[in-house]
């Protein structure tokens, strides 16, 4: 018990340090707020103007997809932050201190929840401007925001692992883009997954990004009069998304902590 308390206390110290950095480097905050705005406007107007999904206002439909995609990009911040700390020797400083072995990761993923919250807030405000509305109760809406944060938190741990594994921020960014693009596009984020061909459809149906987008869409009441999805994952998007969150955390929390303990800048 004492160890867990200590890990979170140390984690809080690290999280505070990460947040100070966001304060000191305004570029980070500008990027945090600009890119979600850009995504909402870009997808809303470029795709929203030319794609028509029968039974639903497409601009409203894709907002949940943009949310899901953006928080995954946001989770990438965890990995690039750790990769940067590693190349600069900050991780070595931390590892030489008698702090909990999990603290740097707890702090990093923790501060990135706040980072992602800011980006969700900004996206929501931009969404409201382009015509997106929450058509459900506040409780349901909160569920929608929570599942976004939970999912991005879980992805943060995946990114942490990759960020500690690669040798530089550059490599991390290339690697994460190769992961983020297919995973967020072969999904029901921007199109209806049931209209995709064969294998793509299966992938999209069972892709947790789809279920998160679907859960958020339902939580905000943005499904219009679309037909009920056929597959279990999308009929029970909240449950299916939560299963993924739990599984990712069970696998990647210990894996990332182990990687942290082994990682060290080489001379």
């Amino acid at each position, binding site marked *: 018990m004492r160890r867990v308390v200590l890990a979170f206390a140390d984690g809080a110290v690290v999280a505070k*340090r990460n947040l100070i*950095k966001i304060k000191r480097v305004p570029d980070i905050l500008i990027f945090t707020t600009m890119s979600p705005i850009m995504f909402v406007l870009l997808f809303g107007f470029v795709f929203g103007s030319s794609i028509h999904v029968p039974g639903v206002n497409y601009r409203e439909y894709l907002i949940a997809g943009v949310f899901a995609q953006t928080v995954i990009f946001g989770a990438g911040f965890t990995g690039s932050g750790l990769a940067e700390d590693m190349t600069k*020797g*900050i991780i070595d*400083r*931390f590892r030489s201190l008698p702090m909990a072995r999990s603290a740097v990761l707890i702090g990093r993923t923790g501060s990135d929840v706040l980072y992602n919250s800011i980006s969700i807030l900004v996206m929501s405000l931009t969404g409201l401007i382009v015509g997106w509305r929450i058509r459900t109760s506040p409780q349901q809406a909160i569920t929608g925001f929570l599942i976004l944060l939970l999912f991005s938190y879980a992805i943060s741990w995946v990114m942490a692992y990759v960020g500690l594994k690669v040798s530089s921020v550059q490599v991390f960014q290339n690697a994460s883009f190769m992961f983020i693009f297919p995973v967020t596009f072969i999904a029901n984020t921007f199109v209806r997954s049931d209209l995709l061909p064969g294998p793509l459809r299966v992938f999209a149906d069972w892709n947790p990004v789809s279920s998160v987008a679907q859960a958020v869409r339902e939580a905000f009441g943005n499904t219009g009069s679309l037909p009920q999805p056929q597959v279990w994952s999308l009929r029970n998007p909240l449950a299916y998304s939560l299963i993924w969150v739990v599984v990712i955390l069970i696998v990647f929390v210990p894996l990332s902590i182990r990687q942290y303990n082994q990682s060290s800048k080489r001379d």
Partner: protein
Amino acid sequence: MVSNMIRTEGLVKRYGKVIALDGLDLVVPTGTILGLLGPNGAGKTTAVRILTTLLEPDEGLVEVAGLDVRSHPNQVRERIGLSGQSAAVDEYLTGYENLEMVGRLYHLGRRESRARARELLDGFQLSDAGDRPSRTYSGGMRRRLDLAAALVARPDVIFLDEPTTGLDPRSRVQMWETIEELVRAGSTVLLTTQYMDEADRLAEDIVVVDKGRIIAHGTSDDLKLQVGGERIETVLANPDDVAPAQTILARLSVGEVRIDEQSRRLTAAVTDGTEVLRQVLQRFADANIAVVDVGLRRPTLDDVFLMLTGHVAEEANGTTGENSDGRPDSHPRDGRQKEVVR
């Protein structure tokens, strides 16, 4: 209090096929400073990383503050401070925030961490810059902050990994003075460096490493003694005189005559410096050899190092040049004979 703050025996570390440490034995008695001297890639940083729990050794015994580093890493971390190449300060945090954070992570508590941070900033002449992000600091200031971070928890053992690499001469001297104060205050320090003058000035005891092995060990004076007494160094005016001058010097010197053709500089170890110098000048004059510069100097660690590592390279495909206790055996002297000009 344990008598030896740092002790390693037969330390081995491999990176794939590359052997970074090849049986390193170190002993640093409590309250002393050991200089670990070697070129880039000699294994200095690897040794520091293992001693500071950042890296697992493949073989060997490692003890810091009487604790086995492998079985009690966290207890070791409570008693050490690390500074230099191996660890960094956060450039986005102010000096104060950096030190306060480190204090919190040593679990000194909020109030103590804050007080200690201010105290250290004062002690390292950083109080004026304490509330500025450290990326605005000069190289020397950043190193001082880095060293301060290592001292936050008043550690028993301090590891300084190339603390002055990349610093301008003035900052180097400042850093040396700070380190000297630490040692006077009774800290146990392991210092790695690739600069001879640094080891010479700071470290009582010096271990020279190359390719992961100890090639020499002793005080600065011991090491210089191995190379012989004083040096005569002369620069000739005319390149054609190099050969005859070499012959003259070889007759009067005790060891090798080192020649740098480019600058026409000849260096020779001698026993009775002033007398030999007089004779050399006399014979040069007899042979009509004009000199631009001539002088007598004490051997530097550069001489030691050049000699020792030079031989290791020569013997790389033959038998090893070290005894198991890590002290150089007679091979270097055999090697030196090859360079003697007769």
